[in-house]
């Protein structure tokens, strides 16, 4: 259950961990996956034991699994969140040129990223809050634009219950028409593309006791039954 609760909610929203657990179900065995900072990075904790993922990090790392607890580990084996993965005997190291050949070339199967806003046609904003005026792009634009399967794992609204799934993103964009799936604390929504740029949001799952009408109320663009 989430820290967030709003008076009109039909039932509690799920926690960050629950979002990660639900997103993790979409990672097939043996796939190459890049996890963004925040909720996405939690997905690694919720994989079924029979699923083996090759995580890629922008730092130039492939094949890691467990992270050392804070304060331990080797700074020469780092993921993009600044964590130190355990040096298991299947890691591959490479430089940033190769790391982004891999990303920009579309060789990563799936990326799970955080989101500030996602639009009805699959646009993503996740790198800057306009009021701050400065933000960090990092690898997010390369990943969102070039990965065949982009999953956004985020809360459905802000802490002030302002919808993050919107008709048109008002925050600076990360990439257009890039999102394939949105996993939130109340819903799992597929972005179904009719063409490269036209999409429809299809509701695939809801949190317990949430109905499509409840979800529509906190979503600023139309969502459809599957």
């Amino acid at each position, binding site marked *: 259950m989430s820290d967030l609760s709003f008076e009109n909610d039909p039932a509690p929203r799920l926690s960050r961990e629950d979002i990660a657990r639900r997103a993790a179900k979409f990672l097939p065995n043996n796939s190459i996956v890049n996890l963004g900072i925040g909720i996405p990075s939690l997905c690694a904790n919720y994989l079924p034991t029979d699923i083996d993922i090759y995580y890629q990090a922008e730092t130039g790392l492939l094949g890691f699994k467990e992270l050392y607890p804070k304060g331990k580990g080797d700074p020469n084996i780092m993921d993009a969140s600044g964590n130190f993965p355990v040096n298991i005997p299947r890691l591959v190291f490479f430089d940033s040129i190769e790391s982004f050949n891999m990303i920009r070339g579309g060789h990563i199967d799936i990326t799970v990223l955080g989101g500030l806003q996602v639009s009805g046609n699959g646009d993503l904003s996740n790198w800057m809050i306009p009021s701050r005026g400065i933000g960090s792009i990092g690898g997010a*634009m390369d990943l969102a634009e070039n990965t065949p399967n982009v999953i956004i794992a985020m809360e459905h609204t802000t802490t002030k219950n302002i919808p993050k799934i919107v008709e048109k993103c008002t925050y600076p964009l990360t990439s257009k028409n890039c999102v394939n799936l949105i996993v939130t604390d109340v819903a799992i929504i597929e972005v179904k593309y009719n063409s490269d740029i036209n999409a429809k949001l299809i509701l695939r799952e809801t949190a317990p006791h949430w109905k499509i009408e409840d979800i529509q109320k906190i979503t600023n663009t139309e969502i459809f039954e599957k």
Partner: protein
Amino acid sequence: MKNEKLYNSFLDSIKDIKNGSSIMIGGFGGSGGQPTRLMLALRDLGPKNLTIISNVAGISTTTGYGWPENITPIDQGIFFEAGQVKKIICSFPVPGTTKPISEIEKSWKTGNCEVEIIPQGTLVEKIRCAGSGIPAFYTSTGVGTIVSQNKEHRIFNGRKYILEKALPADFSLIRANKSDTFGNLEYIGTSRAFNPAMATASKITIAEVNEIVELGEIDPEKIGTPGVYVNRIVKRKPGDPYP
């Protein structure tokens, strides 16, 4: 014969860096692969109006990003604190959190420096191109975003791309584990990051290393930067507390 690439002092190795120089700083962000001693020497040397080019920049001092817990982090913030920076070109200049405010954000807020944010893959490719005779390339990263503003757009095979230009610099400060006397460099793990690309892209490349060995003592299959790209080599003191 004297080996003109070997320097005994970090300060000596960078003393021709002048006001207005452009300087690449290697690594990814965090302590692994960061030329921390060269950075401290550059701060001590004190040239002003610098253009700094690096990837993740200035977030370790506020968040501990990529540093072990038992040591106070050093990052690009030291140049901002010292008022040496005119502009920074990077992919990740601020952490998600807004407090405490980093030196870069502080400097940007007060209008003391310009911050140019470039997607990480585009940044490293621009640097690589500068070193490899390619003046410009097309990428789809950034299309439809503020990154594409005022850039040439072009369609290849039905997809939209933007033109990005090579990014060279005057100096590259890089970090490796070992160097041989010719400047062939061996890296460890993810400490490669931006170091190999930056090594190729500047007029003068200076490598901070843990160890200097004789020619042939690095396994040739493990050389990450061939010595042709390295102009100066400086060895850290044994037992240096910085990773």
